[in-house]
């Protein structure tokens, strides 16, 4: 009957084992206070999470990798079971943790709030730190993929040359042979002008409004590769009368978490939290256009880091479309709008990192409000690329197997254009089907800001504070400068 004597209520440890030096302060909140069971005080204590697991295996049934990859033991092992094993001496993190694609589906699957992805992130970091040779090809390749942002500025300086060189089959062959980056995929092309260059040329914000301010976290991809998405965000938000700020920023950290490069991620996160907190101080909310960037700031930062303001930044960060839905009458503004043929029929894929934020139904709901758009959800499967995961030679096949269901559904849908909010899902969708893939913000721009050119923003926005209806739909005096 020893179980019966245990406290039913797991949120208040009644008797704390004394470990001496409990250095947490009891600042009066009733949040769970971790029991310091093990000596290493600098490590985060995942025990409450591990103890919450009652082994129902719901996470395992949600794991897209375990379904197709015989070498992957699933999230329940990678999380709570491995954590417990590690309490013994002489247990290394199992190398299979590198097979986790960090889609984070297990998080929202768990009925018992076990922080699975947090456990995976820390386990992966430990594996890379302790068990992976820093001179191995795998480490170098992963470090490079994780720090894509550091390479991107170089390529951006000479985008045409970079695109040409990277498109050469000999380059791809070399990439696979020397680095283990699959030659099956086309490397993303670099824009001839980055978003930030465009932003500077443009002279920054066209709308000043101290009551409605956003700080745009554009992330790497929409800066270097798809600036049209970032521009769309600026024009749509200016259409609604927002003052857009573009603070200094680093990578969100997503590819670093996924590759176990937690120190790299920490450095990036420190910059982001500092800059975004300053923007929040200036009255802005933080807006991201990439679902993995918003996921990272909202969930992974508070789970993994404890900079001052981490929580504040997390709580004030929003998905770009979600923010408009809650703060503006987006549906009302979209009523009676139309778009060109290129957007009339679309196959929408909800990225896992949108799904995990409860945003998977959002895009179809918003698209429904626009006349003439027929957007189909292609189902709840994972695209399979999961950021840098599907770029690795050894994961390519698994990645395509996971994506199979999505490809089939896209083929079945009548659409010829794909729609999603995640850059790497978008690469996978294009790779598997050959469709052109758009971002939801590009559709909103086409519907709300005529000519898709942001002319409204340039001319009429200074007068539009809040009242968005009727504005901008009729503007034809486009004087777009790019």
């Amino acid at each position, binding site marked *: 009957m020893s179980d019966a004597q245990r406290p039913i*209520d797991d949120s208040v440890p009644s008797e704390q084992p004394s470990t001496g030096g409990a250095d947490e302060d009891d600042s009066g909140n009733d949040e769970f206070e971790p029991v310091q069971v093990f000596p290493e005080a600098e490590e985060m204590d995942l025990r409450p999470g591990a103890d919450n697991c009652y082994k129902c295996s719901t996470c*395992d049934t949600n794991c897209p990798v375990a*379904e197709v990859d015989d070498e992957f*033991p699933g999230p329940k092992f990678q999380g709570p079971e491995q954590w417990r094993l590690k309490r013994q001496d002489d247990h290394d993190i199992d190398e299979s943790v590198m097979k986790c694609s960090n889609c984070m589906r297990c998080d929202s699957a768990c009925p018992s*709030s076990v922080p699975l992805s947090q456990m995976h992130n820390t386990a992966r970091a430990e594996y890379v730190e302790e068990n992976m040779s820093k001179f191995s090809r795998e480490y170098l390749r992963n470090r490079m993929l994780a720090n894509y942002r550091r390479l991107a500025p170089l390529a951006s300086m000479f985008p045409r040359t970079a695109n040409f060189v990277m498109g050469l089959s000999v380059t791809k062959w070399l990439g696979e042979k020397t680095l283990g980056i699959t030659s099956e995929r086309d490397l993303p092309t670099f824009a001839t002008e980055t978003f930030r260059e465009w932003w500077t040329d443009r002279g920054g914000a066209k709308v000043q409004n101290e009551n409605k301010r956003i700080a745009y976290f554009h992330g790497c991809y929409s800066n270097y590769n798809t600036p049209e998405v970032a521009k769309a965000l600026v024009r749509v938000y200016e259409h609604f009368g927002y003052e857009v700020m573009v603070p200094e920023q680093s990578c969100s950290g997503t590819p670093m978490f996924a590759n176990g490069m937690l120190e790299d991620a920490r450095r990036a996160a420190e910059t982001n939290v500092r800059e975004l907190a300053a923007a929040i101080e200036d009255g802005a909310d933080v807006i991201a256009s990439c679902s993995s960037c918003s996921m990272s700031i909202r969930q992974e930062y508070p789970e993994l880091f404890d900079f001052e303001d981490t929580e504040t930044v*997390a709580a004030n960060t929003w998905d770009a479309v*979600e923010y408009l839905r809650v703060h503006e009458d987006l549906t009302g503004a979209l009523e009676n709008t139309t778009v060109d043929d290129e957007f009339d029929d679309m196959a929408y894929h909800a990225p896992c990192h949108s799904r995990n934020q409860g945003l998977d*139904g959002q895009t179809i709901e918003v698209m429904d409000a626009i006349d003439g758009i027929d957007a189909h959800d292609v189902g709840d499967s994972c695209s399979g690329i999961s950021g840098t995961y599907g770029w690795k030679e050894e994961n390519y096949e698994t990645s395509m197997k996971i994506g199979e*269901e999505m490809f089939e559904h896209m083929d079945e849908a009548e659409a010829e254009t794909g729609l999603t909010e995640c850059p790497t899902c978008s690469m996978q969708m294009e790779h598997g089907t050959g469709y052109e893939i758009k971002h939801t913000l590009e559709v909103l721009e086409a519907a709300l800001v005529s000519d898709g050119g942001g002319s409204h923003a340039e001319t009429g926005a200074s007068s539009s504070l809040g009242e968005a209806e009727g504005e901008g739909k009729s503007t034809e005096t486009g004087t777009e400068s790019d």
Partner: protein
Amino acid sequence: MAITDDVLVIGGGLAGATAALAAADAAEDARIRLVTYKQSTLRHASGLIDVLGYAPGGVSDGENGQEQGQNQNQTPVADPFTALESLPESHPYQRVGVDAVREALAFFDEIAGDAYAGSHTEMNALVPTHGGTVKPTARYPVSTAEGLASDDRDTLLVGFETLPDFDAPLAAAHLEAAGAPFDARGVTLSFPGIVRDDAKVTRYAHLLDHNERVETLTGKTGAREALAATVEPHLDGESRVGFPAVLGDDHPAAVRETLSDALGADTFEVPMGPPSLPGLRLEDLLYDALESAGVRVTSGVPVVDYETAVADSTADEPATAAIDHVVVDRNGAEIPHEADQYVLATGGLVGKGVESNRERVTEGIFDCYVPHATDRYDWFVDDVFGEQPYARFGVVPDEDLRPLDADGNLEFSNLRAAGSVLGGYDYAAEKSGAGVSLATGYVAGTRAGEGCQ
């Protein structure tokens, strides 16, 4: 600006999904939204749709049946609808009435189409489960149809070394001991293509769904053919073969057909414990229906708070507060969701719609009244399979399924409750979980739909 709908259903299990579908059915032009936090407990469920397997308090309908594991002194109910009449007044079935239970089942039959069987009779079917026990149930997945215990064909049960949850020889022996009218035999084999001891049930299903090429002694073949070839030498005249429920996720009918053709015997699934593919398939079926019905689904985020509006005093009852909007938490951001009518279908103690701490038992979102003893040592009895008070914890509804407070007044004018967040019944002992969720979900959803017109 709140996200606005006509009906907001909170909870995405069988009760919530049924409520949303019923609301959409009752009010064609209304906009219905379902908000669900964690994935539903359907993944833990057998996928069987029971109405009443055992009458509470040992009431039986007279038939001299088998003794079952957790209901050792009870006889399974043969005709659930007759037995419903004698349930206590506080039981959810009594609240909605027997006719509503029939309507709800018919509603389910329409949604399920040919994925479920059992609608040809009001009597319970007896479906063998993975322990070799027999469960009385009103509807069952078509994948289990060939395995019914009332069918007298001899049966081979096939288990797999890597799926220890289903011990086929033991299950077969248990079936025979329980008096099943046929010979049952069990064998344990190795599943071709499975290389891990701890492969997930989804891995088995995926192999069969996609008929992946797998390694066998005679070279590579499709997983379905390889499985049939593994089983075939063990058949000894049995005309049906039972497998643990891993025979496909997306294409179970095709998987069974291939196996049946290759074996020259009917194949069926034996429902398993969690995580359960028949439960997953039921969830998929319901969510496909929600999509077809135009119900909007927001998942992965919890409802954490609510605001009330000033009540109209036009009603003949004392002025009752109405819910104006609820607040959904998204990583700290608070998203208001507004609707005219609300349905609470957040589950019981397992689904966490009802929670307990050392002091009290609560309903987590609206703090609706949940009757319980003040001393927590009175919440349970020592006999594990005895009549556990905690099993009946839940909110108390009126006949319209609107939760009542401790004085018997309405908590809110526009809130209804459905499924295991309701108290007054012990679904585990009665085998009534799915039936109550269907019946109360159907009634709550229909009334909510009608209420917003």
